[in-house]
């Protein structure tokens, strides 16, 4: 599903450049549930953004669903994101003037689905995250956990190949964290590839594989107890 070879990424800072990813090799197969851990500034978000086609790498190869990602123009990138990827952000990133239902339906709009069908599908996914009754609420009327569940529904609505989540529980308390993790586990059980960044060991333990980063290199890549239990 995702194959990364000798990936490098630097950020220009003034005249210098900051070498953030220093040769990453990573292979994630379809249906995996992977978490990345590492100290702040180790390059986790950078890696996820490259995987999510929100940013571009400098060196190395990246294959998404077998397709080499190289010199991609924005239009193609947008189509790939729409088709293969679903995003969940730490700060939810819901559009504030759209209702929960409209937010969930938005990726389908860019897919070109008509409104009626779109709202129907979106409602199904809201139901799936347990927020059917909140469909007509604006984001600021929802709790953090509810917002994140709306965001997850939005990430899932196009039925992507991979869900990418950058600290999805970073802004949540323990109970809501659990409900969000349960949701991610459920969708993984249904076969979805899920790739999360987290700081919390308890969260990482609920995934099936933990990749640890330090200073832009992978220092360990191990299956979790949860995976072994299977």
């Amino acid at each position: 599903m995702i194959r990364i070879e000798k990936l490098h990424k630097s950020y220009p800072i003034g005249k210098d450049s900051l070498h953030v990813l220093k040769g990453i090799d990573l292979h994630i197969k379809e249906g995996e549930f992977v978490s990345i851990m590492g100290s702040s500034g180790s390059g986790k978000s950078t890696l996820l953004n490259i995987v999510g086609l929100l940013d571009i790498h400098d060196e190395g190869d990246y294959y998404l669903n077998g397709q080499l990602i190289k010199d991609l123009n924005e239009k193609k990138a947008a189509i790939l994101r729409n088709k293969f990827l679903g995003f969940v952000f730490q700060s939810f990133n819901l559009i504030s003037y759209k209702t929960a239902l409209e937010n969930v339906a938005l990726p389908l709009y860019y897919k070109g689905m008509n409104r009626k069908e779109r709202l129907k599908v979106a409602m199904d996914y809201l139901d799936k995250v347990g927020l059917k009754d909140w469909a007509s609420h604006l984001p600021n009327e929802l709790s953090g956990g509810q917002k994140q569940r709306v965001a997850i529904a939005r990430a899932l609505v196009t039925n992507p190949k991979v869900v990418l989540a950058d600290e999805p529980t970073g802004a949540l308390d323990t109970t809501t964290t659990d409900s969000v993790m349960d949701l991610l586990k459920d969708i993984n059980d249904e076969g979805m590839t899920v790739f999360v960044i987290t700081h919390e060991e308890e969260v990482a333990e609920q995934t099936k594989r933990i990749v640890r980063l330090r200073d832009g290199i992978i220092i360990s890549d191990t299956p979790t107890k949860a995976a072994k239990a299977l």
Partner: protein
Amino acid sequence: MKFLFDSDTWQEIYGSIRKNKVRTGITIIGVLWGIFLLVVLLGAARGLENSFNKAFGNFATNSVFVWTQSTDTPFKGFQKGRRFRLNMKDIQVLKSEYADEIKLLAPRNQTMNLIVKDFKSGSFKVSGDFPVLDQIQKKKLIYGRFLNQNDITSSAKVTVISEDIYKQFFEKDEMPIGQNIKINSINYKVIGVYEASNTANIDGDTAYIPFSTYKKVYNTANNIDWMMITANEGIDIEQMESDVLLTLKNLHKVHPEDERAFGSFNLGKEIAKFTGFLTGMQFLTWFVGIATLIAGVFAIGNILLITVKERTKEIGIRRALGATPKSIRQQIILESVFLTTVAGMVGIIMGATVLMIIDTLFGQGEDATLVNPTVNIPIILAAFTALVVLGTLIGLIPAHMATVVKPIEALREE
């Protein structure tokens, strides 16, 4: 173009317009004001021009009026303060000496007289005139005709009266032609009634009678009160005025430098002044109008820029969800075109309303200052289109910027 008819497109636009009320308000006010100002300015300028045309439109504008006063310099044995009169010999001389320059020449005699019909009476100006007067100062006749050469030759006792005189002596819609009125106790047959309004009528309410009749009845011999001269096309009217005055001074033994002996009024000169003023005003209108439009264009562009800036994050989110650069641009541009179109139309409607109000307040009656203040629809449409197109082109810059930055940079924006 399909996206234009897509209800989703409009749903998206409606959503974002409703969300950004302040921005929407500012855009609408900016554009509305620009168009509104342009409509009102152009309309008012047109109104002024119309009222000017109405006032002078029936008048040969290259005309000079000449009359006599009294000398202010002794000359050839005459004391200063001498009074003298113009006469038909002067007319003869001028006609032959200035055959090339003078187009029309109307000698005139005028007096105030009592007009009586049945048991009604009133004092009005009576004027002895030639048919040529009608060419210098066009009369719009409601009934009958103006004086003609036959009336002159036969010294007919006929008269052409003003609408107001008619109203005073006749019933409403009564046929005046062929009826008699008494001027100074002498019967005249009414042969015409002219419309007094809508014309700068230097005569006021006048009963015109043939020049020859006047001469007999009032015993004026060869004397005349004053004359109206119209120059040929392309003749320098001021030059002609001073030449004619010099010739007349010579004929009447008046010192060439005498300033008071002859009075004259150069209509051409006065009108030239006013035309200059009108041209200046039109220029000003256009200048202000175009400046307003440019300001409007920048306002739209600027607002779009702000829009895009404050919505960078939203645009980033949309891009992460699969919005293509084209769809982002389309939305931003469609939004601005929609806003400017609505605002522009409201501006045009408001401007037209104000012009209508101006018309009812100042545009009615005989001495209206602004007659029929209107604007050319093509001009307004052109200005409007320019506003929308230029505004949108400027808006393309921020819209483009919003799509060239990497999505992650847009997302990082707070």
